[in-house]
């Protein structure tokens, strides 16, 4: 009799403790929200899945989110950077990507031109050289290039040195690389390097070009005379070329919603 009671008691205690243990916090749950509809409201916000509104999970809304959450800008769109001085730096780039760039670098729908790289060589940096620009270029280089190309541009960045041969060294700078050539390479990528047009707008790319030229040891500030500067913008870009070019740079406005990702609710 006593033994039986004891048994029941022990079973109950064990079951109780198992339930308690299983209540340990679920890492996939953010926890209790005060008024959850304020966290997941019908109002449009980036990176928020609207499929769940006021606790109701809407299949149709979910479909809409999956199909239309990340928009690629409409064909022919160019980012607006005002009309002020230097805004024309942002005009579409006139040189095409290498042939086959859609297959090798995923530049879908980007204008291709077998001579693009050669034509780009003649471009002159439209941003006048100044110490300020050099400083900004250095800052950008340190965020976007240094981990592969290294502090001095010798191709010994931390990604190369710490990845046990998994990543190829970009090699040291070739002295033959011109300003336009550097810009072209950042825009479309080359070999193992991908296109960085989505991460850096044209102004930033030209600033980096100034800094890279400093690393090359080239004389700086020669092209500072703006009257001599040939703007590398596209006079004939009002057709397909322009539209295609923006396809590659659709994320420039900083919202970074490409066609390739979306946030999901928890």
């Amino acid at each position, binding site marked *: 009799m006593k033994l039986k009671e004891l048994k029941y008691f022990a079973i109950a205690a064990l079951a109780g*403790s198992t339930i308690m243990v299983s209540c340990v916090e679920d890492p996939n*749950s953010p*926890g209790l929200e005060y008024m959850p509809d304020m966290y997941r409201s019908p109002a449009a916000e980036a990176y928020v899945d609207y499929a769940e509104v006021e606790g109701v999970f809407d299949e149709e809304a979910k479909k809409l989110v999956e199909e239309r959450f990340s928009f690629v800008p409409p064909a022919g769109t160019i980012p607006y950077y005002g009309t002020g001085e230097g805004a024309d730096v942002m005009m579409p780039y006139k040189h095409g990507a290498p042939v086959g760039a859609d297959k090798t670098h995923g530049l879908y729908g980007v204008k291709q031109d077998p001579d693009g790289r050669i034509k780009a060589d003649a471009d002159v940096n439209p941003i006048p050289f100044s110490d300020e620009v050099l400083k900004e270029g250095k800052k950008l280089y340190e965020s*976007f290039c240094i981990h592969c190309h290294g502090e001095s541009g010798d191709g010994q960045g*931390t*990604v190369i040195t710490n990845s046990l041969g998994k990543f*190829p060294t970009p090699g040291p700078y070739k002295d033959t690389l011109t300003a336009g050539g550097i810009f072209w390479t950042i825009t479309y990528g080359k*070999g193992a390097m991908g296109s960085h047009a*989505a991460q850096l707008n044209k102004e930033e790319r030209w600033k980096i070009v100034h800094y890279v030229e400093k690393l090359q040891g080239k004389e700086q500030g020669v092209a500072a005379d703006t009257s001599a500067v040939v703007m590398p913008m596209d006079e004939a870009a009002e057709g397909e070329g322009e539209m295609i070019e923006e396809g590659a740079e659709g994320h420039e406005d900083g919202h*970074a919603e490409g066609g390739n990702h979306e946030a999901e609710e928890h």
Partner: protein
Amino acid sequence: MKISKMFISRRFKSLVLTVFAFISFSYNIHAQGDAAKGEKLFNQNCASCHFPDKDMTGPALKGARERWIENSSEEKLYDWVRNSTAVIESGDAYANQLFSEWGSVMTAQNVTNEQVDDILAYVEEYQPPVVEVAADPGAGTGEEQESSTLIWWILSALLLVVIGSAASAKSGLQKLANEQDGVNTPGDENWMTAFRRWAWTYRGWVGVTSLIIVVVLLAAGMLDLMKIGVFEDYKPEQPIAYSHELHAGKLGIDCKYCHNSVEKSKHAGIPTVNVCMNCHKTVHEGSTTGTEEIAKIHEAAGYDAATNSYTGETKPIKWVKVHNLPDHVYFNHSQHVNVGGLDCKNCHGNMKKETVARVMTTEDLNNVGVTDEDYDENKVKFTKPTLTMGWCIECHRESNIDIANAPEGSYYNMIHTRLQKDQRTYRSYLEDDVVSVAELGGLECAKCHY
């Protein structure tokens, strides 16, 4: 005389022969190449497009000499390295096959035949570095913690069993004693009335104990209510097991490389898959997860790792949002980074030691620069949980603005000019010698709620 002449010429002949033999011998050495010299040349000229043992932008270089000898000629190999376009145009079948297969012309290299030999010697000798398998300390401790809580639960359950059996043994003994003493326990008494009787007998103790229980429950309830809307330590599982520790820590990639809209937008931005592909086009195998996780990136980007080309069939990656703010709160990254001059670590802690994103706790933020050496210490020490209003306010109260040295034409420079015209307000701000964010309206409701 004649004999001596003959002798000389014979000696001369043998000398010529030895020299010739020596030259041809050394030529043989050249044909083998010098791997040490080759390594340097390879890294300078070839490594950005070729791996010795794997295909990349160009084919793996191991066995290149044999392939050329088999399909074309060795001479053409040297020509190809120096000027591949010319070889293609000469109509060489193998060269044209390579061109159509790889889709791009190899950059002409300014190297001699000997240097090509050196490079190929290095390539043939190349052995991939041995990857040391690092023990994962994080996984082990997590499990340990979980099992230790389990142990506590089991111990307390055992304790309850002991108490329960002791109590029932006691009541049995009591019953026995009562029967012996001739005291009758009322048989029809149910457990409720028995409990009431018992409670009345020990009313002092019962009263004090119930009061303590009520107070404890109220306090526990209050503390739990305080956790509503607090997301500290929220670390959801993500579709791809990305590691900040590896990318930002070991490989030293700047936060802004991936979260590149942090200076331009309200959002720091989740990187688009093309940013991942900037490296993972080449790196197909991770050091801890192998090809499994990186294959997910390739699937999303529409990249066929087998043929090294994009297919155009993309698929979204459904990342889970970690840092949620309610709809009635406005927060802007670019304001805090550009104008406020904050660093990522001020609010996100040391991500160099984390795998997937996590809402850092107050403790983590206060430990930045104290228990680790990746960053400097944060100036503001927090007491309120992260991502709550109290936490924002704390920082707005304690952070100061160097308004007098704000750059010309900036927002704070404008306010400084205005304050100089209103010296009384300026002096009241400067009572503690600094202008804080709060003094410039950092606590105004409408700054963040509208």
